[in-house]
């Protein structure tokens, strides 16, 4: 008996579930980190390459940063990309989350068929969807513009958000909602104070996914863009015929830096806010 208690106590010293305190976990995470960032570090390093071909190191130079900063077309493409990604992420996260929740919760006639259809944007080859969208926009007489890009991006990112939300909801304890209702909360209050907070990590994951998908998309963007609506990927892909220069690396580096600093600011503000709330 004492043995068991002692054994337990020993185990409690490092909580077995604090995986982050275990060396093997650190090793694995470190390995993944290297895998994820090694190419990115190379990419950043080559943004300082004095040679125009992004494959061969010739020497240090800031030339490409200067070029990227003075390249009006690149700025426009960048802003367009951000615009499209931001708007479509917000809309598709909202719509996708509601859809995911409804699919998790409700049974309705023809649900099998319905689910089959709404998951197709995940599997449809980009080019096939792109062509379909163009045919559609021309057929109904909608002029191609930044908005047609956004509309298409929302359409293909909604199911991605929905599946993440469903994966999140799979372990939800429905009795929490019942308890809330039993205690006199309205349907809306139950959703807002019980269900929604539970969904948040799923929303974050879904939104990140939608953002990456939208930011990365070339094919659908290319086809649904109107005159003057170049995005960053469209710009990069069109450089392929000649050579992709380190200018793109430089621009990507700047994007990474902007994201990092925004995150840091957000983190600092959040920690101040929570501190302020505690006091």
């Amino acid at each position, binding site marked *: 008996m004492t043995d068991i208690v002692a054994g337990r106590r020993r185990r409690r010293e490092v909580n077995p579930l604090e995986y982050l305190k275990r060396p093997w976990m650190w090793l694995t995470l470190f390995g993944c980190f290297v895998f994820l960032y090694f190419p990115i570090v190379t990419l950043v390093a080559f943004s300082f390459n004095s040679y125009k071909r992004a494959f061969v190191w010739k020497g240090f130079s800031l030339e490409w940063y200067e070029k990227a900063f003075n390249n009006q077309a690149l700025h426009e493409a960048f802003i367009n990309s951000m615009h499209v990604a931001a708007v479509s992420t917000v809309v598709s996260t909202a719509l996708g989350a509601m859809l995911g929740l409804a699919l998790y919760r409700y049974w309705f006639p023809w649900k099998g068929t319905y689910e089959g259809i709404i998951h197709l944007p995940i599997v449809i080859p980009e080019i096939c969807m792109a062509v379909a969208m163009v045919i559609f926009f021309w057929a109904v007489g909608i002029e191609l513009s930044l908005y047609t890009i956004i509309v298409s991006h929302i359409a293909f990112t909604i199911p991605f958000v929905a599946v993440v939300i469903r994966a999140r909801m799979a372990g939800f304890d429905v009795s929490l909602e019942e308890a809330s209702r039993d205690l006199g909360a309205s349907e809306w209050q139950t959703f807002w104070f019980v269900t929604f907070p539970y969904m948040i990590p799923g929303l974050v994951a879904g939104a990140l996914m939608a953002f990456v998908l939208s930011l990365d998309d070339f094919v659908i963007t290319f086809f649904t863009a109107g005159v003057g609506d170049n995005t960053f990927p469209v*710009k990069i892909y069109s450089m392929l*015929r000649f*050579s992709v220069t380190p200018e793109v690396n430089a621009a990507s580096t700047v994007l990474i830096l902007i994201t990092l600093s925004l995150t840091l600011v957000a983190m600092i503000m959040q920690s101040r806010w929570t501190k302020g709330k505690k006091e």
Partner: protein
Amino acid sequence: MRKFGRSLISQVSRRAFMQGSVAAVGITFVGGANRAWSAEEKRLNIYNWDTYIGEKTLGTFNARTGIQVQYDLFGDNEEMFAKLKEGNPGYDIIVPTDYMVEDMISLGMVVPLDHSKIPNLKHLDPAFTNPAYDPGMKHSIPYMWGTMGLGYKESAMDSAPESWADVLEPSRAAKHSGRIALLSDSRAVIGCALKYMGYPMNSTDAKQIAEARDLLIAVKPHIKTFAADNGQDLLVAGEVDITMEWSGDIAAVMQEEEGYNYVVPKEGSNVWVDNICIPKDAPHPDNAHKFINHVHDVDVHVEIANTIYFATPNKDAKAKMPKEYTDNPAVFAPDDVLSRCEGILSVGEHTRLYDEAWTAIQAS
């Protein structure tokens, strides 16, 4: 061809023409666009390859005409075609390659040009003014041209390659096994294999295409990759020693680096011409004509050729170019080689033969 535009330009200077002609021709109509020329807003939407223009071209155009240019990008002919297939979202200028021009004409996707609005056509080399894909340049004006050939690293070769056999004949390709890149372009690769076997580049004979396919399958073990138009990068990065590429890409490498060279194989190869066209339903056809004329202005064209380093069809501009450009075999192929080269032509319903052969090559 020379008769176009002569009368106007001989009387007034080019500059005066640019400013004055708008009123003079203000009542002309062009193509299907029912729009009086003088009423056009000062805008122009260009759809072109990235960096396929001089650095100052658009600036000088704006300074001379006051027209604001929107420069949009595409990456290859097929992309551009697919984008315009359902309708023109508002482009005034497109730059397709020869075979694509031919198809776009047949499909009514480009409008006829008014040569009287493009007096600078007189600078064009007569060899380019009556192309097979568009007789009489009715719908397209040549912009730049080039060949397809082999770019190679001199130090890796015992002797300079001179035949397609060096990369297509298994016994000879074995010498550089795993150090060869071909292009990932079905018509170009199969076309060159056809040339090597003594067949026409645009063969529609299923048997000939099958032979070319089998040759390519046989040589595949020695090929490193089918490069997606980045053979020149693979060459410089040391991934391969010999690569099939478009002339201009290798010319750009040779400009930057010692030790690389380019050859058009003796069996002949592909010669291509990129052209400026006005797509159907272009909102600013008058401005588009002005732009075409601007591009072939000798000084403007010299700057373009200097920037992008492809061969120019503009003989007067060529005359003003430095020797390292005009004597460069990667820019201008020698005439005797050129005489054995062919353009890729549209093969209509036989496209499927090439498509299936290409899939078979990839999948085998």
